[in-house]
């Protein structure tokens, strides 16, 4: 199982899903319009490390964080 957390203003509870890769996660999340509308603008962290490779493999127990646009300061 992969745990997916939605940070900041997305305002969704974490979910647990079966997924081998980011495409599986993307396909799953796009079923929920209140989440899918954020995805174009969101960055992704795997186990609290920012990732940029769409082919990053996932394994059981991984945590994915979905990070919407930021504005600190």
């Amino acid at each position, binding site marked *: 199982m992969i745990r997916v957390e939605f*940070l*900041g*203003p997305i305002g969704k509870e974490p979910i647990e899903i079966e997924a081998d890769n*980011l495409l599986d*996660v*993307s396909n799953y*999340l796009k079923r929920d319009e209140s989440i899918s509308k954020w*995805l*174009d*603008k*969101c*960055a*992704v*962290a795997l186990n*609290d*490390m*920012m*990732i*940029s490779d*769409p082919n990053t493999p996932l394994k059981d127990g991984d945590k994915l*964080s*979905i*990070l*919407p*646009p*930021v*504005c*600190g*300061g």
Partner: protein
Amino acid sequence: MMELYDGDLDTKEIFGRWLDEQSNSNYGAYIPFVGTIRAEDGIEALSFDIYEPILQKWFDDWQDRAKAKGAIVKMAHSIGDVPVHKSSYVSAVFSPKRRVALELIDEFVEDFKANAPIWKYDVIDGKRIYAEDRSTPMDGFGLLG
């Protein structure tokens, strides 16, 4: 090195403490950047969410970048509500030399705005509204889009 506070920052305490901590480090230049909440668009406060694990990694990477130039960086930020005319953000560079310090504070603050995992909300009539129009997608956005 990275400090998070509930509510607004005690800017003078932070400035003075960082100065004292480095008083014998032989740095020639100390440049703090103080960010203060502006009164505009009828807001009474701004409010902040922070995802600390990734902010800490971001900050640690910056500490390494600064160290490679003989410098150090420091940072303090608010969590939750900060009223107008109060400060929510202080970052700083200490460096032996002026040029390094001036370039580093610029890069550090700009990358902070672009990539620190912090979300900002306007507080109007006690309601928290995501500051979407002023927010920036982080490096690598769109991976699931």
